[in-house]
Every structure is written in C-alpha cells, then in structure tokens.
C-alpha cells in the first residue's frame, strides 16, 4: 500500500513541492496563461519569455495547488529554460504518455530530450493514481496554452 505512495511522493517531488523553483512573476514575459484544475481547485499561471527563434529564455510560474502540481510546474520551468519551443512540445508529448499510458515506450518519442525525460521519470508514479494525472500535467497544458495564445488552460 505505502510502496505506491512512496513511488508517487518521491523525495524529489516533496522537495520541489515545498520549495518550488522559478516561483515568481516574469514582468517581461511575452507569453502567459492561467491553468485551472476545477476538480481540485489548483490554479497556476505560467510565464514564458521566448526570443525570435522560439528559444525559451526564461520560464516561471505562480499559484497554488497540491504537491504534485507544484512539483511538476517547478520541474517544468527548470527543464524548459534554454530549450526551443518545438523541443518543449516533443518533451510534453512524451511526458504526457509517461503519465497516462501503461505501455509507454520512450522510443516512440525520438525527438524528446532523454536527460529531461530521465528527470521527469519521478512523476511517472501518477499513472497508478488516475485522479492525479491532471495535477502532473496541468503546468504543461498551461505552457502549451500560453504559446498557442490561449489565455486559459483547463484540465476539464
């Protein structure tokens, strides 16, 4: 019983949840969106600063939510800074499958950065907790909405 919980609440997640990185406003952001998980009441804002080549120069977030959603947002910002937007998208596709698909095979996502996926592997425990998948993916959905010009992302 507790093994799966330990798998879900790994030290890395608890650490990011308690001390989220890049938890700040980004006044010169050129993209931002509000993310909303109505079932849980999680509410976050994701900010992105992209240059003309769509390279993510800076990424931050604010808002409140459970340990999983806070940790996921925190890790996402760390991972995305310095990446190209198209790499961020490839990474999200692979990460989303990791969180939802029992037969997830990273080889099906050759464009996703392997080092980043290794780091995100700590979130894979949510697969055993279907109600919590949305917590893990909220920040990523919000990032995507921001870049696509949507003002809000909802997991519902």
């Amino acid at each position, binding site marked *: *019983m507790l093994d*799966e919980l330990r798998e879900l609440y790994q030290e890395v997640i608890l650490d990011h949840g*308690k001390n989220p990185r890049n938890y700040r406003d980004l006044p010169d952001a050129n993209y931002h969106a509000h993310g909303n998980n109505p*079932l*849980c009441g999680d509410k976050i804002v994701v900010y992105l600063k992209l240059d003309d080549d769509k390279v993510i120069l800076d990424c931050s977030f604010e808002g409140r939510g459970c340990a*999983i959603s806070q940790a996921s947002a925190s890790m996402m910002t760390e991972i995305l800074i310095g990446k190209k937007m198209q790499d961020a998208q490839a990474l999200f596709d692979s990460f989303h499958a990791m969180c939802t698909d029992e037969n997830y095979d990273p080889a099906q996502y050759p464009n996703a950065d392997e080092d980043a996926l290794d780091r995100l592997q700590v979130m894979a425990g949510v697969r055993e907790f279907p109600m919590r998948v949305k917590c893990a993916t909220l920040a990523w959905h919000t990032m995507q909405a921001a870049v696509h010009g949507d003002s809000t992302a909802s997991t519902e």
Partner: protein
Amino acid sequence: MNDLSNRPIAFDVAKARADFPILSKEIYGKPLVFLDSGASAQKPQAVIDAMTYVMREEYANVHRGVHYLSQHTTMAYEAVRGKIAAHINASDENEVVFTRGATEAINLVAASWGRKNLQEGDEIIVSEMEHHSNIVPWQMLRDELGIVLKVAPIDDDGNFLLDAFETLLSDRTKLVAITHVSNVLGTVVPIKEVAALAHARGALMLVDGCQGIVHMQIDVQDLDVDFYAFSGHKLYGPTAFGVLYGKKDVLADMPPYQGGGDMIASVSFEKTIYAEPPHRFEAGTPPIIEAIGFGAALDYVNGWGMDQIIAHEEDVHRYAQDRLKQLPGITVYGNAPDKQGIVSFLVDGIHAHDVGTIVDRCGVAVRVGHHCAEPLMQRFGVEAMARASFGMYNTKEDVDALLEAVKTAQEFFG
C-alpha cells in the same frame, strides 16, 4: 409520526453495518472505511432488493395503463409520496413533488416560482455557506431578471449570524434560500427562526435540506418553511431521485416547470390544462424504480428510528471533531456549537488532495476539494478542504482509522 412500538431499543451499529453489503469490501487490502456519505451514502440491502424486485416482478410505466403491472407499479410508486409526507410531516402528500434531486428541486422553484413572482430589484438572500446548487440557480435568475442576490454571513467558527441576516431583510426581499446543515462546516442553521424573520417581511423560505434530511428529524410544519429540497441518495436511497416539498397554496400558484406527458389534465392544439400539484411539476416518465427504492430507504431508516440514528451519528461526529482537533498540525473548519455529521479539516503544510490520496491508500474514503462551495473556500482563504462525513454505519473505529491515515500523511510530508 413513526410507529414507536416495534423497533429495537438501542441502535445496533454492527447490525446496521451488516445491512450494507459494500461495507464488507476491502480497498487496497484494507477494510473499507467510508467517510464520504455527505457526498452520497451507501445503500442497504433493503433498497437494493426493492429496486431489483420492481424490475424483476412488477415493472411498467406509471399513471398510464389499466393493465395489471402498470397498476401495481403506480400504486407502489405513489405510496412513496405518502411515506415522504409522513417522514417530513407534510400536511398533505400532494405537497411532495418528485424531482431528479435537490438540484432540480431548487431549479424548479427558480424557474417556476421565481420567473412568475420576481421583478427587477427584488432580493433573494442566501448564506455564505451555500452549495453551488443553491447559488447558481439564483444567479441565473439574477442575470435574467435583474434581481439582487444578498449573502448572509457566518463567523469564523461557521455560526450563522442571525442578527446580521436580519439586517439584510428588506421590503424587497422575496425569498430566503438557505441550507439547513452546511455540507462543509456541518453548521445547523436555526431555520425556524430564519423562516419566521423571512415571513415577517413577506418573503418565502426555501431550505436546501440535502444534509438536514440525513442528520435531523424534519418537521416542515414546525419549521414553517415554504420549500424544503433534498436528494434521496444521501439518505441511503438511489441517485436520480429527490424531493421538493412545497406548501400547498404556494405550489398551487406556480406554473409548470417542464412541459410534457403526465403533467396535464387535458391537451388540445388550442389549449392545454395543467394537472394539479404535484403532477403539474412532474413531466415525463419519472424515476419510478428510484422512487420505490427511496421508499425502501425511508422504511429502513424508520425501522431503526431517526432519533436513534441521529444519536449514534452525533456520538461518532463529536468523537471525530474532538480527536481531530487534538491532533497537532490539524485545522478543523466548522466549530459551531450546533453542528452535525461533518468534519472538514486541513493538515498543515499538506494540500487537501495529497491528504486525500494518502488517506485513500490507507483504505479511508474522504472527500477533498471545494465541495461545490467555492465562495465558502474563499471565505476561509483556502482552495480546498478534506471532509469526513458520517452515516448511520460509521463507528469510532472508522474515526480512529482516519486519524491513523492522517498521521501517515504527516509522516510522508514530515
């Protein structure tokens, strides 16, 4: 109102638990501890049997046939109206309107009574601790008609502030719509006093009785309310069945809510004459099986006696309230002296959803989230709470299991 002669002397929770098949289930290899009856209660075998029986032996549509099955189903179905009237002490069973739940009951009042009787500038008073189902229908009406929605406050312990409420009443107040028992804080609102104040200003009184019907002995005549709405599934009956109690003269003056079959006296293409209440408000084939199931649920609880069930729940609830408050690092929301059946709380430093997940894996089912009461969450400055809610089958051992599970969550996040 209930027959006192042939029921057990004392409530026997072990015996009651044995009547609920699902309680013998194991969850993640642990005995189920179900503390989410406030969302929906489990069903006793008597309800399961009654519904199965109708479908196997006595099923046909109601009010329509002269054939054997239709007559039998109609009689069984209509008998439930009398049982409900007796249970809430309505003066007439025609004051009992069948709906799909409390939400539909409130929407019925908003659409029918509201549209007919409200004009721009008229006022409706709700409280800060309403469920969304007793907020949104009035907001929709506000946006449609230009009425004003006023909010009666509570204090930090969750007490309904009767004096503050009284100051909100005006000559424009047409309706007071307030919960009997808060689904988050457990607060019991002094409905009888509220209704008297509302009536003194010429306003009607609607009560959201979803939790009240479970944890209190309801006497609509003594409370002197105009509407009392509740769902069947929180009182051990099936989903998709609920009740709108309405005073006879109030219902008589209300137009239909939906049009269709079963709500008419006669129809021609030139003119339709509507049926009298309650059928005027029951268009279409009703939830027949569910109504009969709810009748069985009422028989079941009255077999024990509501007073016995309430006394038992009170005992478990007090134990939970006291023990949770004694745990370090716990904040209990809702500390009104008069509260029932529900304990909401947060664990310091742990989001309610993380608490919910960990507690669940310990075999304990609690609800986490905003409990369809977002304005109340805002009132307390939180996004979510964890809520333990109690039914007739819960025990102090269930509460102990919750406390252990909460400690496990604290260890995880320690």
